């Protein structure tokens, strides 16, 4: 795998004679963004706040310079745009030295990864009163309001390709699906979630599958049903690069959000914040924890901190 500095260097070389907008839209730049998020988290969980702050600052400066250059009426070549070239070079040099240091980032860290992450244990199942459960589900939704709204805006947008909607709906199922909610809240009788009007409304709005025993489908459900039909049709269609790109972008957003939660845990203070975050990052990177598992664990650890 190429190092981050190789990626930044290659992107700059490829676009130095070109325009900022082309660089900002390029696959090379998206790769840089992805790898930068990993490196930033790695520094944060290891307690290297000063260096993490440096690459975050330098990356933001570079992003802003790219944005300014892309929206400016003057269109100098990237290498002739001093603020942009300067920001890119500073970022490149920092990541180059960090790449060169490699394992020493861990060796110089005083943080030891937690041997077990307490919050990854399943929440104990218990009996609920329906009213309490409704309230707990509402809170569960409220604490994920930003993600919920984002998913909804993607699903409600008629311009969103069906392939992308399918990916979002799959993600919604992982977070807001009946079993996910029951597991997160420790509900013994899963059917109580299905009966909860709060969950039913949420599931209908997001177009999540649910068992309906009686009554006509609601307007929202019908709308979603039509979308699902369109989605089924799109499954048969040839997948285009645009769809693949949309999926990649969505997965990248998911990763960035998950990494930002890990960063938040590391920065939450306390004795175990860094060590739990470090262990979690290692498991996430190794594919031993999913996005949702990481997020649930972080939420729980932060609540009990």
């Amino acid at each position, binding site marked *: 795998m190429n190092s981050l500095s190789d990626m930044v260097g290659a992107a700059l070389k490829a676009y130095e004679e070109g325009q900022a907008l082309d660089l900002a839209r390029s696959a090379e730049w998206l790769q840089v963004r992805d790898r930068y998020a990993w490196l930033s988290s790695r520094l944060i969980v290891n307690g290297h706040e000063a260096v993490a702050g440096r690459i975050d600052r330098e990356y933001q400066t570079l992003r802003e310079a790219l944005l300014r250059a892309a929206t400016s009426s003057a269109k100098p070549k990237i290498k002739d745009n001093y603020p942009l070239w*300067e920001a890119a070079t500073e970022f490149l040099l*920092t990541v180059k030295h960090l790449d*060169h*240091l490699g394992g*020493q980032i861990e060796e*110089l860290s005083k943080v030891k990864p937690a041997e077990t992450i307490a919050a990854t244990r399943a929440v104990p199942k218990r009996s609920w009163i329906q009213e309490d459960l409704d309230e707990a589900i509402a809170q569960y939704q409220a604490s994920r309001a930003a993600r919920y709204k984002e998913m909804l805006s993607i699903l409600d947008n008629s311009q969103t390709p069906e392939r992308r909607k399918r990916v979002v709906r799959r993600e919604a199922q992982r977070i807001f699906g009946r079993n996910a909610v029951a597991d997160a809240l420790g509900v013994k009788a899963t059917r109580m979630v299905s009966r909860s009007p709060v969950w039913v409304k949420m599931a209908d709005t997001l177009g999540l599958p649910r068992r309906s025993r009686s009554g006509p489908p609601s307007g929202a459900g019908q709308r979603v049903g039509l979308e699902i039909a369109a989605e089924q049709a799109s499954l048969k269609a040839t997948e285009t690069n645009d769809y693949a790109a949309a999926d990649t972008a969505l997965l990248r957003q998911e990763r960035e959000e998950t990494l930002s939660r890990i960063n938040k845990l590391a920065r939450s203070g306390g004795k175990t914040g860094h060590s739990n975050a470090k262990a979690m990052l290692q498991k996430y990177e190794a594919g031993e924890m999913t996005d949702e598992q990481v997020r649930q664990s972080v939420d729980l650890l932060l609540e009990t901190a």
Partner: protein
Amino acid sequence: MAVDLSKWPLLVFMEHVNEWKDSARSDAFWETLTEHTRWANRLRDEAKGLIVWMELNGLADQASQLDKRMEGFRKELWTFQKACEGTFPPEDWHCREQRETLIDSASLVAGIAEDLNDEVAEAVWEGFGYE
């Protein structure tokens, strides 16, 4: 007897900056502008290695001091390049003047490297992969 400076990377860096300064003061400088710019960029790279290492070792304040001086040096280097663009440098007063400003900013970099060397314990540099 020659002194081995390799245990003190800040002093090595200071020496490299001083070499560049001495060379930049010579008459040959005007014929080797491109080489001197590349050389200055290597100094920039070297400084960044020191800055990152100091930050990783909990010396963010010291790193910041070197960083600020390097920022000044970088700006003067750019201004110098712009001032000397499209001119016959030795005959252009603005370009010559900018060379002096650039050399002054390099002196500030060398000065802070020397000061920081007194502040930073030798043990900090153990494991530093000096290039």
